[in-house]
């Protein structure tokens, strides 16, 4: 399904987007994600296709609002039945079937305020499905769920969507959710700045906004020094990093290098530096669930994620001297941003 929507207020959007299967739309808080969904649902003045000329109650969409917006005076199954187009006698059975699909069969009688946040979200999802819509609009569908429930629910949801053949557009700021989608798009500055299969977007973010959103923790501005066949060398704060050159770059051009913390490894107490490795010191060090996160003094200051086992063997400690290794394949080359904007991941304008 191809969507074209245009809004002016509260935020100007000009959106051109393909929705196939389960499509995730990633964007920072305040980017206009909720605004877009409301526009498609007909709840905000907007121009667009499809549905653009229909009143909201005639648009064949299922909408899961950001705050769930369950009807507080109706219990779970009646909330779901609200969207069902069935004779009275069959409503309950129909609603319970949908609730069972989201794992809430035993909570059919509960009022929303007696459900936990995650349960509420699932009821709202069932309600959105009730109308058998031609398009599902999901606003942060998993924000209230713990990791295990989120993954289970998402997998089921994606299967359900495949089975019913209903395309779904889910907006989120969670890259994990985007990663599980059939297709993803990134919203920034009122436009879709990149779209495609998630692994492609994750592997080759088109600009700095996308890179940040999909989890590249190191974003280093640099200047291309020379290109030597399959390898280009980029100067980053005095260090020459080897990268696989992009078609577009020429020596002397300013670029931005994006590197995942997980892709930087350490080399065991090497006396001689192997290629693509250099010495530095650990600035901070912090144990996390899946490994040890270190930052280095630099230059350039980098963030790396080291597996627990490796960290133990290397006896990492604050201020210790280490050798970092960075494969050329792990570095993405992005166009340099017009102006350095370091507050992107913070200080976003107010949410919807």
């Amino acid at each position, binding site marked *: 399904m191809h969507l074209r929507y245009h809004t002016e207020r509260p935020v100007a959007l000009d959106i051109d987007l393909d929705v196939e299967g389960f499509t995730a739309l990633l964007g920072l808080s305040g980017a206009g994600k909720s605004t877009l969904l409301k526009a498609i*649902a*007909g*709840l905000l003045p907007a121009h667009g296709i499809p549905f653009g000329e229909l*009143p*909201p*109650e*005639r*648009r064949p*969409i*299922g*909408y899961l*609002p950001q*705050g769930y*917006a369950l*009807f*507080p*005076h109706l219990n779970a199954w009646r909330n779901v039945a*609200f*969207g069902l*187009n069935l004779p009275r006698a069959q409503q309950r059975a129909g609603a319970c079937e949908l609730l069972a699909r989201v794992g809430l069969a035993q909570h059919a009688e509960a*009022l929303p*305020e007696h459900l936990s946040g995650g349960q509420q979200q699932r009821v709202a999802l069932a*309600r959105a499905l*009730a*109308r058998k819509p031609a398009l599902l609009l999901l606003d942060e569908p998993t924000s209230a769920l713990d990791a295990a429930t989120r993954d289970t629910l998402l997998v089921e949801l994606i299967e359900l969507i495949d089975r019913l053949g209903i395309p779904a557009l889910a907006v989120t700021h969670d890259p994990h959710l985007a990663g599980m989608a059939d297709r993803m798009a990134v919203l920034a500055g009122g436009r879709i700045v990149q779209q495609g299969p998630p692994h492609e977007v994750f592997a080759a973010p088109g600009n700095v906004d996308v890179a940040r959103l999909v989890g590249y923790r190191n974003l280093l501005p640099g200047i291309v020094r020379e290109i030597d066949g399959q390898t280009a060398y980029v100067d980053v704060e005095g260090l020459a990093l080897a990268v696989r050159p992009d078609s577009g770059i020429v020596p002397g051009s300013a670029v931005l290098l994006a590197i995942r913390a997980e892709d930087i490894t350490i080399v065991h107490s090497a006396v001689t530096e192997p290629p693509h490795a250099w010495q530095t010191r650990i600035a901070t060090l912090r144990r996390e669930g899946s490994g040890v996160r270190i930052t280095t003094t630099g230059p350039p200051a980098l963030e790396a994620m080291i597996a627990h086992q490796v960290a133990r063997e290397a006896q990492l400690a604050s201020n210790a001297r280490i050798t970092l290794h960075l494969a050329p394949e792990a570095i993405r080359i992005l166009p340099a941003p017009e102006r350095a904007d370091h507050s992107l991941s913070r200080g976003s304008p107010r949410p919807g």
Partner: protein
Amino acid sequence: MLLLALPFAGLTGATAWSGFHLSPGDFAAMRISVLYTAAALVLIVVLGTPTAYWLARSHFTGKWLIELLLLLPLLTPPLAMGILLATLYGPYGWAGQPLERIGLILTNSAAAFILAQFYGAAPYYIVAARAAFEGVPGELEQVALTLGKTRWQSFLLVTLPLARLGLAAGLALAWVRALGEFGIVLIVAYYPQGIPVKLWVNLQDMGLSAVYPLLWLFFLIAMPLPLLLGLLSRRRAALL
């Protein structure tokens, strides 16, 4: 609180319980009060609810003027209100004269009684209902739309149930006001005699001893509705 309850303790003391009896016509007054107040209430709900909803949901520049107009009847002393209504709807009033020609006499008639109660109670209902509607998140109505319900269905199925606490309070207030309305009724509809006017007549004709029993009767018939509404909304609130 105690201060407010004191006079009623006094009432209990002052009533001659042994010689407790109603005056002739008291029951007729009760019937009139209950019947016509119910009619006035229906009128108030039917006309007041859309007005309140409109006030709650729409935003435009001249709105404060409308709100001022709503305040006016609240503000006017009942006696003055009665005089104004008599001027307007009286036999020589410019609304009363044409209405009289089509057979609707608005002086000392059932219609006049209901009219007086309407003016006395409607503003209270509208103010309360408006606050209740303002408390219902617009988002829920919007979601109902996306689920394929029309605006009217969404009002019935979502807005009304969610506003019911406030609406019940408004209804109770309007009931109490309409039933107890005296000043306006005294001028516009001395007849048919509801309980408040009957109280006045009893006082003039027979003195206090005839007033107290009627007052008790009045409490007896006036209380159930507000209490019921309060109870119902509390029960539902507890259910939630």
